[in-house]
């Protein structure tokens, strides 16, 4: 029945392969060359420059600043997102009421356009009309911020101390529901009898979470952490739209992606920008590999 199968295979594969090679594979491959060139304008051709871009990068404080901001995200976004979503999933899986409704609501921000979320939240953080400041004023929480070393309620996106965390909080807000759905699916695989047995033995919910749920979910947690960590390296649209395409006060929200975009499309340093992109890729890859190697694989299985 598969006679003349190549008459089907070739025309079916060809259009997709042609598009993919032209617009995806070629640009990725080409960037590996561009990263080693000096390329400063639209009309001149790239000139091979060896490792010049990379040695320049080592001395570029803005590169380190941007990388530092990515690392800050890498530490606190996955940690907060995973903890929050695990907690939400555990509560929903333990037979909370309206769990279907909560699922639908919690997941929704994940499908919303990042740009509308960014614009929306920049008004949540707005110092005069924003809801965050109004809520804090309503509960008279100014003294709390004085204790933390601010003069009053900070101006959020306008303050270099808070701007980065304000953007990170939006990422957590947006993606917690997504990871919750992921964990809920995994929790459904845990037999009820485990919880029933623990409950008969008098274990508290807190103990059940640490002794039953978390160990059995460990592999999902690892994958989710890597995924969330990669999102921390891919910060771009939210940063750009929430900081009016600037880099935040004192470049406090600049990340590698916004920095390389600026270098390429505002300063026309195409070679240098691509070298930063290559570093971004290598750093992301290293992070995923190292993380998956260092965290133990769980050997527990339901028997």
């Amino acid at each position, binding site marked *: 029945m*598969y006679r*003349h*199968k190549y008459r*089907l295979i070739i025309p079916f*594969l060809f259009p*997709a*392969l042609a*598009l*993919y090679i032209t*617009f*995806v594979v*070629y*640009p*990725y491959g080409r960037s590996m060359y561009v990263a080693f060139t000096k390329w400063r304008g*639209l009309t001149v051709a790239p000139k091979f420059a060896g490792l010049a871009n990379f040695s320049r990068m080592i001395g570029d404080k803005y590169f380190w600043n941007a990388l530092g901001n990515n690392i800050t995200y890498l530490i606190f976004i996955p940690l907060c997102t995973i903890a929050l979503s695990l*907690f939400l999933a555990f*509560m*929903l899986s*333990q*037979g*909370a009421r309206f769990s279907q409704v909560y*699922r639908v*609501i*919690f*997941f*929704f921000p994940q*499908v919303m*356009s*990042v*740009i509308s979320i960014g*614009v*929306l939240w920049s*008004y949540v953080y707005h110092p*005069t*009309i924003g*809801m965050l400041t109004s809520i804090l004023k309503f509960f008279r929480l100014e003294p709390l911020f004085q204790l933390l070393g601010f003069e009053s309620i900070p101006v959020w996106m306008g303050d270099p101390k808070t701007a980065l965390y304000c953007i990170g909080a939006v990422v957590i*807000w947006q993606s917690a529901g*997504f990871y919750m*759905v*992921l964990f809920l*699916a995994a929790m459904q695989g845990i037999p009820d009898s485990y*919880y*029933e047995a623990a409950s008969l033995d008098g274990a508290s*919910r807190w103990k059940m979470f640490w002794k039953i749920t978390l160990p059995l979910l460990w592999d999902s947690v690892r994958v989710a952490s890597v995924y969330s960590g990669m999102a921390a390296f*891919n910060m771009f*649209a939210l940063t*750009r*739209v929430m900081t009016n*395409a600037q880099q935040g006060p004192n470049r406090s929200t600049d990340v*590698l*992606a916004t920095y390389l975009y600026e270098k*390429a*499309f505002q300063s026309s340093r*195409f070679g240098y*920008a*691509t070298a930063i*992109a290559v570093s*971004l*890729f290598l750093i992301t*890859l290293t992070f995923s590999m190292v993380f998956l190697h260092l965290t133990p694989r769980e050997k527990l299985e339901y028997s």
Partner: protein
Amino acid sequence: MNIQKQRPGFWTIVSNGLLALWALIVMFPMVWVIYSALKTDQEIFFSPWSLPASPQWNNFVRAWSDAHIGKFFLNTMIVIIPAIFFTVMLSAMVSYVLARFPFPGNKLVLYFFMSGMLFPVFLALVPLFFLLNTLRMYGTFQGLVMVYIAFSLPFTVFFLTGFFRTIPSALHEAAIIDGANQYQVFYMIMLPLAKAGLLSMGIFNFLGQWNQYILPLVLLTDSKKYVISQGLAFLALEQKYQNDWSGLFAAIVIVMIPTLLIYILFQSQIQKGLTAGALKG
């Protein structure tokens, strides 16, 4: 699960309270922007919390026509309708071949497509920008459509190949014995059988392409051709619009509506499709 019946009380109250609190935190910004979009600028400035005294539908008219959201909406449709159609069609053809026809290098082609998911899009930007210039497609809708299709292929091919593998081959064989040729089998038997998978990928790519920002930012510079996310960012970034909050809020609501509708209609497929993407590794 019936544990909570044995131990009602503290845990139930706390967990239901916390879930409701998170629901409030998730919903409130969205509800706030929706009702603020119906207020006047004075109301937004002087009483940010209150409901509109009388709904200002005019804000939406202003956002749609004066702020060109209508134009951006139309541009997006011109780009994503063909892009989604061809993404799904071309991926279905590839996936069908990869799932059904063993040939030397079959696995290699699949991995070749999947490898596209490994790289961050930022790595491709500079070469892509120059490539479209060389092909005289820079700043055109055709160029953006091609790029959207190409970047959507890896995940769509990966997902649909898995899907085609689950369709039993008996029908295929029966049709061939009845004298159908391979093309007829594909269009008349396999595609209808794969409808659920094709629909999932249509929705998935709709969400991804509707929300796409970095590619149009680099590849379309003419503000008349802006797509919706780019247009909304432009409105928010351009200082001129900062005095018209109500118009900007109305624009945000207009951008939210299509995703909200699609999400309400297809929420279970969307949750499955998006989380499948995370577990691919």
